[in-house]
């Protein structure tokens, strides 16, 4: 790999969107007005071209070339002579992430050109919207290309900021303003752990750049004192002691970093911000809250694979959180009526799959799922946006139906996206999700079952949404003249639909003898590309990770004995089954859902109200903290100032006494003179 070339391309990936953001923001309101989308489209598009060039360079390099980490400049310093740098870290994982982020962003930015207009008239804040979108692409690129934990944190916080600004785009709506704040704060709670994790990394390694930290961690796990000494530049005699420290702390670091991932990727228990984030414009939901930003946690865990795989317990926690989130979010999605919220819960659920993938050491499959998910989920959100655009801003499925004919393009593309999400055979998510389920089953029957159940629910709720919205009697909200969206939007839907059909083939090998006699899963070009990055996961069991992938695991032997493709047939069956059940429930026998609702009204209410988690957080955390704030304030006024009043009371009392003596009347002074004289005389005479 030519390092100078890569560095230049990396700089372009960052600078082009940043320049786009600045131009759109600075010139938008006065000069560009309705054409403010151009700086963003050109900036983000340019970044996409640069990332593709960058990725192709990485692709063409020899597989064992290792990461390139050019240093741009010295940033700030914890100790004289040692600096945290602004530096890149370019390897296959970076390349894949950059391509995913910038390509999807480009499509979404182009789509937004029409979406942010009504009757060909730009919305208020048009330029602001594009400036923020471009700023987001810049931030996300920093997150994935940064070469140390400080830059990771920078990108991490900056994407959170963009998310905040874009969720609150319609800031006059109180719900949007509240959702924006909630998103930022919940993320900050996760970042609290994340930041402490970074501090602990520094405390342990005295460096924050990936090169040193990962190198030292790897050697420490191998108990290679010479390697640790070389990596950390310390005396080999001190290295043995340090190895103990490092191995001791790595699991703690992993758990702290995991807190950040849970917040950013909306996993249990910090997922609550993501459904509310749908208050933002649909392109934002598509890009930030589905395709890219929320996958930051998955990226981070794969990037820090050495740290995470250091402990089997940590990996089990990751897998359990992922598995339970996948199921939990899918259950909630069953009983929602807002299309975008259903998609938001499905995003949470799919992110749960990715976490599960990481947790069962299938990191490249998790990244594969991240890659396909970016396309089909962006497609679904943009299609939902198209529905919303046509329905005059209404997205509640109870208020429209039978849109098949009014919005043909939207319908067909959404059908493709929905089928992909449901895991319909041969579409992209089928491959990626199946790999994760397969690995999960191979590791632990419980996790595998969890993911299979969630897969069935996914197929059901996705098609419930599609059937309710597009089938049935043709009905639109009053006063809305429904129309298919403009060409900028529709063309992007088509592009994304094509991507979500075919993107899966980067992760599988097409050859005779596999699934349906054609395809071999789990050994695609993507996996070969990522192999050098995820060695920590593939060799993970070497570092004590056996704890939960025990040999006596019953499923493991079972899976080994039967055809490797049985699971693919099973999951095809589950997907199609879910779709068929949804068809029965919502098209042919629409009275069944009502029957279910009446049969278990309380359960339905609980699910419909999202298990009351928001209310729980409000009661258990927000209100007590607020009360504590009031208490602090009152303490200031009454306790502290009261004590001070008491202290000052001493001189005040003194002054009060003295003042009463100085009444200014001659008689008084005369009296006290005489009294004093009398006392002295008495003392002299009788003492």
């Amino acid at each position, binding site marked *: 790999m030519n390092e100078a070339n890569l560095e230049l391309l990396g700089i372009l990936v960052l600078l082009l969107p940043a320049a786009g953001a600045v131009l759109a923001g600075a010139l938008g309101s006065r000069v560009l007005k309705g054409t403010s989308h151009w700086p963003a489209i050109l900036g983000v598009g340019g970044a996409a071209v640069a990332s593709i060039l960058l990725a192709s360079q990485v692709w063409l390099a020899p597989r064992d070339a290792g990461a390139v980490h050019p240093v741009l400049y010295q*940033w700030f310093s914890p100790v004289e002579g040692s600096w945290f740098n602004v530096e890149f870290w370019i390897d296959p994982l970076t390349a894949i992430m950059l391509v995913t982020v910038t390509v999807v962003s480009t499509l979404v930015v182009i789509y937004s050109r029409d979406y942010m207009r009504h009757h060909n008239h730009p919305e208020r804040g048009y330029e602001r919207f594009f400036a923020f979108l471009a700023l987001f692409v810049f931030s996300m690129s920093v997150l994935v290309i940064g070469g140390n934990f400080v830059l990771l944190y920078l990108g991490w916080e900056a994407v959170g900021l963009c998310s905040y600004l874009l969720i609150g785009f319609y800031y006059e709506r109180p719900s949007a303003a509240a959702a924006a704040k909630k998103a930022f704060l919940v993320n900050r709670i996760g970042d609290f752990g994340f930041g*402490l994790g970074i501090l602990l990394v520094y405390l342990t390694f005295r460096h924050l750049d990936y090169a040193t930290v990962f190198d030292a961690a790897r050697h420490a796990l191998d108990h290679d004192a010479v390697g640790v000494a070389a990596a950390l530049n*310390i005396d080999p005699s001190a290295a043995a002691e340090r190895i103990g420290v490092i191995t001791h702390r790595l699991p703690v670091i992993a758990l702290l970093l995991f807190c950040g991932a849970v917040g950013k990727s909306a996993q249990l228990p910090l997922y609550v911000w993501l459904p509310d984030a749908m208050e933002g414009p649909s392109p934002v939901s598509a890009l930030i809250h589905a395709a890219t930003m929320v996958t930051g946690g998955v990226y981070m865990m794969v990037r820090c694979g050495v740290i995470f795989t250091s402990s089997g317990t940590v990996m089990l926690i990751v897998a359990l959180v992922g598995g339970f989130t996948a199921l939990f979010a899918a259950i909630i999605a069953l009983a929602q009526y807002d299309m975008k919220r259903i998609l938001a819960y499905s995003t949470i659920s799919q992110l749960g799959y990715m976490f599960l993938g990481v947790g069962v050491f299938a990191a490249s499959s998790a990244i594969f799922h991240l890659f396909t998910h970016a396309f089909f989920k962006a497609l679904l959100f943009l299609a939902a946006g198209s529905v919303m655009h046509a329905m005059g801003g209404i997205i509640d499925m109870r208020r429209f139906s039978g849109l098949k004919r009014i919005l043909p393009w939207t319908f067909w593309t959404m059908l493709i996206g929905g089928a992909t999400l449901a895991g319909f055979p041969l579409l992209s998510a089928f491959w990626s999700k199946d790999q994760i389920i397969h690995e999960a089953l191979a590791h632990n029957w419980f996790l595998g079952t969890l993911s299979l159940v969630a897969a069935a629910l996914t197929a059901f709720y996705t098609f419930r949404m599609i059937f309710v919205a597009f089938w049935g009697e043709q009905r639109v909200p009053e006063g809305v003249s429904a129309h298919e969206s403009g060409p900028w939007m529709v063309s992007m839907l088509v592009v994304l639909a094509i991507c979500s059909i075919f993107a899966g083939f980067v992760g599988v090998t097409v050859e005779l003898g596999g699934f349906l006699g054609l395809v071999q899963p789990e050994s695609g070009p993507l996996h070969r590309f990522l192999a050098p990055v995820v060695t920590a996961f593939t060799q993970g069991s070497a570092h004590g990770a056996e704890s939960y992938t025990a040999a006596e695991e019953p499923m493991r032997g079972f899976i080994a004995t039967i055809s490797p493709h049985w699971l693919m047939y099973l999951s095809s069956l589950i997907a199609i089954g879910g779709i068929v059940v949804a068809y029965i429930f919502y098209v042919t026998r629409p009275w069944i859902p009502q029957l279910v609702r009446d049969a278990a009204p309380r359960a339905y209410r609980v699910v419909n109200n999202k298990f009351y988690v928001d209310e729980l957080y409000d009661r258990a955390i927000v209100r007590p903290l607020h009360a504590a704030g009031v208490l*602090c304030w009152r303490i200031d006024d009454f306790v502290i100032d009261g004590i001070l009043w008491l202290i000052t009371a001493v001189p005040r009392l003194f002054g009060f006494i003295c003042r009463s003596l100085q009444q200014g009347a001659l008689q008084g002074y005369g009296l006290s003179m005489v009294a004093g004289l009398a006392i002295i005389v008495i003392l002299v005479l009788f003492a």
Partner: protein
Amino acid sequence: MNLAEWILTLVIFAPLAGALLLLLADPRDVKQIRVSALACSIATFLLALWALILYYSAAHAGAVGSFLLEKSVSWFGTSSGIDIRYHVGVDGISIWLLMLTSVLTPLAIFGSFTGIQSRAKEYYCWMLVLQTGMQGVFCSLDLLMFYVFFEFTLIPLFFIIGIWGGPEKARAATKFFIFTVAGTMLTFAGVLYIAYYHYVNSGRGIFTLDIPTLIAFGKMHGIAPAVQWWLFLAFAAGFSIKVPLFPVHTWLPLAHTEAPTAGSVILAGVLLKLGTYGFVRLSLPILPDASLAFAPFMAVLAICGIIYGALAAWVQDDVKKLVAYSSVSHMGFCVLGMFSLKMAGLTGSVIYMLNHGLSTGALFLVVGMIYERYHTRDIHRIGGLARTMPWMAFFLVFFTLSSIGLPGLNGFIGEFLVLLGTAVSNTAKDGFHAGPLGYAYAVPAATGIVLGAVYMLWMCRRVLFGPLTEPPHTPDTSTGLSRDLTAREIGILVPIALACVWIGVYPKPLMEAMQPAIHHNILAAAAIDSTGTAFAEAASPLDGEQLAATDSPRTGRRNVATGGVPAQAGAEPVVRCDSSSTRPGRGGRNAQAPSADRTFTAGGMSEPLSVTHYGTMPASLDPETPLVNTRRD
């Protein structure tokens, strides 16, 4: 005339001269008065800029870390035995605080153009006088002069709050004055005692208050630990109230709420830094043992302040009071960082002073701009202003982000380094002994970051977002304001915003100036105690491990620099606390001319000087001297 010697004097007294000239102006010609006041403070800024350039060129010539641009004149002549001096000079810490003052004052004056309508002449005179006072503190290298300037700043601000303040201005001004004076009285007692003590114990027979001399004295642990304790408490009394440290912060919210905008800007931006600067300049280097001993205590107070201030800020209805409480929280970070006694923490702390000055100053400016239009700061009576005031919204969000430490802006650098320094404090990495704090202190402090976001974003949401809410008959544009910010107001905020971005993206020049100064003037003194085996064995709260002292290539150099003392540390740990009383050996050495003593600080990186003396000191110990650090043994 050598300009480098006089430039600081020029910078300090230029505003005072301007104020005196302004007295001649016609009080009715408000326009002329305010323009000349602004011109004067801008001229001061240019002079300060010149001083900065001179400082950097001198520092590049190799004198990093020591005091530069010095001018030192004895008031009475040294022969009298009372060596009280006019002594100014700056190092990498104070030069930037001087710059902060000279940047914020013109902006504060510019920001008062519409807000101050009555008694304008007096007002601008007081502002300029205040500038002289603050700059004097940062440049003073004589303790008496430092103290005089330190106290002197109270007078102009007392009048600024008391005359041009809000409805409760009299109470606020009095409370502010009495609080601070009560504390600094004790400080003054400490100042006098330290001079007396030095006079008695240094063996030089000179009554001096020269700060570099005292730092050199402190570096050798020249002050008996028991005395250090009392002196530390005396200094802390004045400085903590100024900072303000929990629980003596209650004057601050009131003073801020009642002060006029410019008063708040200067109060938060610069005056609070006088307290932290006092700690950094005096307490830490002169009283190293006591600083070490008190550090956990101070850190706990700081952490209480961080959390307490944040929680209290969250429930305020008055935007200005909210920002005031946020200052309590932020200054907690500042104090926490410095008492980590580590390079990272101290650098973070000093940068935090600048950051807080910039972002909180700017927040007060923005709040003032809102207040001028709506005559209220009640969060319930204004809302959704982003719609009518997009520029204001931009700046409010920007400075909010800077204040809550968004990476890429200034706040992050300070916050991150403070937490980093706190976390690594009890490890022995720097070749110095282990510091007093540790990861266990960083964890509760980090909650301040979450809480900071809570109350600032809550404020933004209420003020900027949601449906537009304005009190009746507003906005008031009678003073020539427009609905959104005027060009003048934008012009005030833009320089601060640029400074925020600069510190966030490329703080390298700052760091390169600060770190040698911190190393030389603070750490070398406070942390020279590498013999302190007590601390070197301090357990990490996390897992009880102790990182080896020799884990970096730098360490080797530092160990050389500290004269190899650590090697013999375990053998004779008592040596370090030797110096409580006069003894013949030391008297002989210290009988050198004062100028020789000064080489301790003026010798650039030739740090070992003090240690060399230290190493060669006769081991005649004073048996009654208690060991400060034995408590951890």
